[in-house]
């Protein structure tokens, strides 16, 4: 096995025991990048030189007898919408070309304090708007499992990097499924924490009330460990929850017999593919054989989640993206008559089609005369969706369903039809609307593309879904439905 194939927790141990060095780990990942990047295009930029230097530094300190944090020297890929001081950050948009962040996001400060090594910034759908990483101003990312397929999105670059070994772990952001759906498509683990568990300070906003940063990893153990690193109250984010972060990774092997498991009744709705339904049924079977009582739970307002999301998210986005106007940073225009022309020219040439579409949609639903009918209505329906979950969580602790209605689809297959693209997030969106926690873990069968198993937990129910998904992962291994890479 190559080093780039291993999860972070294993590499961390190996580095600590002196079995391998950080330089070897980084070199392994960089060589994989060398090998695969041209086809896959996971990254908008790779920090090869710096990563090696940092690795050397870490090895030196370790040799000097210094005790370093467990993930010191682990290469982490960062989605190109999380600010790293002194580095370019583009959100895969032309409009931010040339913008260098003068500050670190809170999660970046935390990762740096763990001595993890930022290996590069990953490709994404422009401003996280998309489900395939095809809406990038810097080219599409391909699915490492089948390069004719999309990696999902919007954190497609991060998911593809972890799946291909171009990174050991990665950070993504999830507004309507942007961590979980690409993780499902690429066959890795993707975690969207409870809204407010991880600081958004330094995450370039798409839809502020829905966005969360989370890890994309090779297995559940890594997800738990990464979550421990990045979670926690942050005084620079008013929506950050004042909670103490549990030691998730030490609880993974705990007994789950007390955890009540629900199955989302709507998993075999219209538009859900055969292989996905089979995957879920396989999982139900696994729980039955584990003698875990599985209960069916229903979500009467499920069908409204998508239209609700496609009102709220664009509305917030239209406001969040208004600041990109060529005045303070990013691209500009040389010869314009006046400020209005500057705004128009910069925004028209700087934003891609999907972003313009959503800005206009958001502007529309907030504009005078339409606010009540669309925006306010959607926020009320959001309450009903939250209530669906509250009701369900009286009976169960976690809810299992598919991450996406299909496995990874072909590149270019859905670009012409935005609504078909939007539909691929139909199962992930409700968790964002309700602000609760959710994970996707992959189920591989017969060499086919993986099916994402979606496990949703309560607000701050991270422990439950991590324990259940860890157990499920073990069972999938047993049954030969799992492969790391």
């Amino acid at each position, binding site marked *: 096995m190559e080093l780039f194939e291993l999860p972070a927790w294993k590499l961390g141990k190996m580095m600590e025991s002196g079995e391998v060095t950080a330089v070897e780990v980084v070199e392994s990942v960089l060589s994989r990048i060398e090998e695969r990047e041209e086809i896959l295009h996971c990254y908008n930029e790779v920090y090869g030189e710096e990563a090696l230097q940092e690795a050397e530094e870490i090895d030196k300190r370790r040799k000097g007898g210094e005790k370093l944090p467990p993930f010191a020297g682990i290469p982490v890929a960062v989605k190109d919408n999380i600010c790293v001081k002194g580095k370019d950050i583009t959100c895969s948009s032309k409009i931010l070309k*040339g*913008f260098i962040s*003068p500050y670190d996001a809170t999660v970046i400060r935390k990762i740096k304090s763990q001595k993890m090594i930022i290996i590069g910034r990953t490709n994404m759908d422009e401003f996280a708007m998309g489900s395939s990483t095809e809406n990038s101003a810097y080219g599409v990312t391909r699915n490492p499992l089948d390069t004719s397929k999309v990696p999902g999105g919007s954190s497609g670059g991060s998911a593809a990097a972890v799946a291909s070994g171009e990174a050991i772990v990665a950070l993504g952001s999830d507004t309507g499924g942007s961590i979980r759906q690409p993780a499902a498509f690429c066959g890795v683990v993707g975690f969207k924490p409870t*809204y*407010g568990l991880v600081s958004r300070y330094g995450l370039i906003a798409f839809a502020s*009330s829905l966005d969360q940063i989370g890890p994309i990893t090779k297995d559940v153990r890594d997800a738990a460990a990464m979550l421990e690193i990045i979670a926690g109250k942050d*005084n620079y984010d*008013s*929506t*950050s929850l*004042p909670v103490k972060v549990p030691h998730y990774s030490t609880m993974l092997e705990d007994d789950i017999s007390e955890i009540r498991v629900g199955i989302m009744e709507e998993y075999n709705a219209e538009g859900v593919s055969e292989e996905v339904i089979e995957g879920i049924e396989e999982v139900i079977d696994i729980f039955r054989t584990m003698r875990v009582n599985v209960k069916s739970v229903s979500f009467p*307002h499920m*069908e*409204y989640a*998508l*239209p609700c999301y*496609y*009102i709220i998210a664009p509305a917030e986005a*239209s406001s969040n993206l*208004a600041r990109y106007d060529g*005045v*303070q*940073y*990013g*691209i*500009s225009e040389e010869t*314009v*008559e*006046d*400020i*209005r*022309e*500057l*705004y*128009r020219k910069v*925004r*028209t040439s700087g*934003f891609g089609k999907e972003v*313009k*579409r959503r800005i*206009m*949609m958001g*502007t*529309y639903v907030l*504009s005078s005369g339409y606010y009540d009918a*669309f925006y*306010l*209505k*959607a*926020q*009320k*329906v959001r*309450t*009903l969706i*939250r209530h669906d979950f509250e009701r369900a969580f009286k009976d169960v602790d976690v809810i299992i369903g598919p991450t996406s209605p299909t496995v990874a689809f072909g590149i270019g297959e859905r670009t012409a039809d935005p*609504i078909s693209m939007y539909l691929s997030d139909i199962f992930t969106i409700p968790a964002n*609307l*309700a*602000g609760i926690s959710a994970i996707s873990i992959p189920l591989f069968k017969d060499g086919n593309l993986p099916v994402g198993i979606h496990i949703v937990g309560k*607000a701050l129910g991270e422990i439950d879904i991590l324990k259940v998904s860890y157990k499920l992962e073990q069972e999938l291994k047993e049954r030969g439905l799992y492969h790391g890479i």
Partner: protein
Amino acid sequence: MDVRHIAKLSNLELTEDELREMEEHFNAIMEYFKKLSSVDTERVEPTFYVIKHQTPMREDRVEKGLEREDVLGIAPHTEGGYIRVPRIR
């Protein structure tokens, strides 16, 4: 709905073709959104915030900000420490 007006509010310039396409997309989406109007939301409060507690507050203390070079260094046009913008009207 007036796509032109929305484009103007958004400070986006669309060609005739793009406007037409956008309008089609809007109509399709709006059709889809109509689903919502069938939901009874009488006596339902909107969820503007999924977190229920009060907004945290800072003590009134001055903290060091950015160096001017960092501010002006990323700006496309500057003059004498200011950021320069075209004619405002």
